[in-house]
């Protein structure tokens, strides 16, 4: 009679148990979908797996009649491009401003409250302003991501920089380091792995902003497609797109984790949270 907290399933049963909820979900979907389709064969809400498969085939492997593109790949490419630009710019801003804020009190004093305020503004509320300032092209979408994500990264990098042990900075000074050298050789390398971690944490928001922006004004993209086909309730397209986006999000997270482990072997051991 071991305690519940001490009973540990072995590898195989863990795998099985892990698959279980997904199998249940799929089964539930199949049952409700079939019962709905039995009543109304035109029902689009919970399409059968055949129609979903057909839709995927159409989107991924048949060029669109209107544009000649393979829609799924085209949408993915265009979304990923914007996402990478937005997240890349945010990371750069977060890194530079965050380190400067953390390192130099004279910069921190004016910039820290500003970015704190920025990080509290819900970006969706200022969408109209964004469109007016940045137009309707890709720039506005990238900027929405940047405005939504960069202030968070700035704050995180600033905190991380500030949390470096004071002892290290003193030590560096006794070794003759200038402010610039301390930033470059002590702060920057120690803050980089945390940047990757922070980017991983904000990737969800970045996707969110991208989809929201694409829903509002776009000519392609994963979010665009979902909100476009919403006009005729085409769940056979929406569902695989959602799964696809989820998979992409998972993949990116995984790749970033790998990179961090590879590039900063000393980090994982310092900080248990890196395997979040």
């Amino acid at each position, binding site marked *: 009679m071991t305690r519940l907290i001490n009973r540990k399933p072995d590898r195989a049963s863990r795998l099985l148990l892990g698959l279980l909820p997904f199998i249940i979900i799929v089964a539930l979907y199949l049952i409700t979908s079939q019962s709905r389709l039995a009543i109304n064969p035109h029902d689009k809400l919970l399409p059968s797996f055949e129609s979903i498969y057909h839709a995927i085939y159409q989107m991924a492997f048949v060029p669109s009649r209107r544009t000649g593109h393979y829609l799924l790949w085209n949408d993915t490419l265009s979304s990923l491009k914007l996402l990478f630009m937005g997240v890349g710019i945010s990371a750069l801003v977060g890194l530079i401003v965050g380190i400067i804020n953390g390192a130099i009190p004279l910069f921190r004093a004016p910039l820290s409250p500003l970015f704190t305020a920025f990080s509290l503004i819900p970006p969706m509320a200022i969408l109209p302003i964004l469109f007016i300032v940045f137009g309707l092209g890709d720039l506005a979408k990238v900027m929405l991501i940047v405005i939504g994500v960069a202030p968070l990264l700035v704050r995180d990098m600033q905190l991380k920089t500030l949390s470096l*042990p004071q*002892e*290290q900075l*003193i*030590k*560096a*000074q*006794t*070794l*003759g*380091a*200038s402010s*610039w*050298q301390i930033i*470059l*050789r*002590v702060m920057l*390398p*120690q803050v980089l792995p945390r940047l990757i971690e922070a980017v991983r944490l904000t990737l969800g928001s970045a996707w969110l902003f991208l989809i929201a922006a694409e829903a509002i004004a776009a000519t392609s993209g994963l979010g665009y497609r979902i909100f476009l086909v919403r006009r005729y309730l085409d769940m056979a397209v929406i569902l695989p797109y959602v799964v696809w986006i989820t998979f992409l999000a998972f993949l990116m997270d995984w790749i970033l984790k790998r990179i961090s482990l590879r590039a*900063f*072997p*000393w*980090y994982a*051991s*310092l900080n248990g949270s890196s395997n979040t």
Partner: protein
Amino acid sequence: MSQPILSARNLYKDYGDTCVLERLNVDIYPGEFITVVGASGCGKSTFLKLILGTEQASRGELLMDNQPIIHEPDEQRGIVFQRYSVFPHLSALDNVMLADELSHSRLLGKCFGKHRQQILKRASDMLAKVGLSHALNRYPHELSGGMQQRLAIAQALMKKPRVLLLDEPFGALDPGIRADMHKLIHELWHQQQLTIFMVTHDIAEGFKLGSRLWVFDKVRHDPQAPERFGAQITYDLSLSQSSTLKQSELATIQQTIHQGEPSNE
């Protein structure tokens, strides 16, 4: 005797209303190994910070070579803390090379080519001195506590500091390793002719290592306002004469140190 390298003149240090150090008047001469003991929270680290330049005196002055001390850490004063003294993102070799790299490359703080080879040579030699030749490319987290402190010392010595400050450098180490470290630091003190200022909690360590031992303690007490008066140097023993120390005095010192530990309240 030579000129004092450090001298405190009527030195006070307050934090707000709390007086931590009170009217210190003392000289430190080149080549001395001063060990400092005292109750927890009595201001030992504070005095060390004053020397280091990260804190400033409230009244009075602290002189280095008879000049007001620079209010910022610099290369003349090396430091080893109990923890966090080495850079976790650099290998042992990089940690030790850092000092030279910084002075040779003001812009990047990183050297390449021939320069790098020279620095690498010097750093390896220094690491050999502290017995870390076999761990050149390990990261600090791959080193034991004792090895990390050796590394920190090697790193600090690369700059040939005029004063080496140690704040409980062996406090976190196991007794066996501690004994090794004592041997090492004593050797380095002789070889490199350092001036060392070391804070410790272990009075035996203080007696064993130092050429001079200070005890920090409050002389005056105000029961209503314990923060009113600061600590002073109540004993200043030259350890060559320590044999003349009376047994009763030793007991007093021992007691002084432990009165700060709350478990004995």
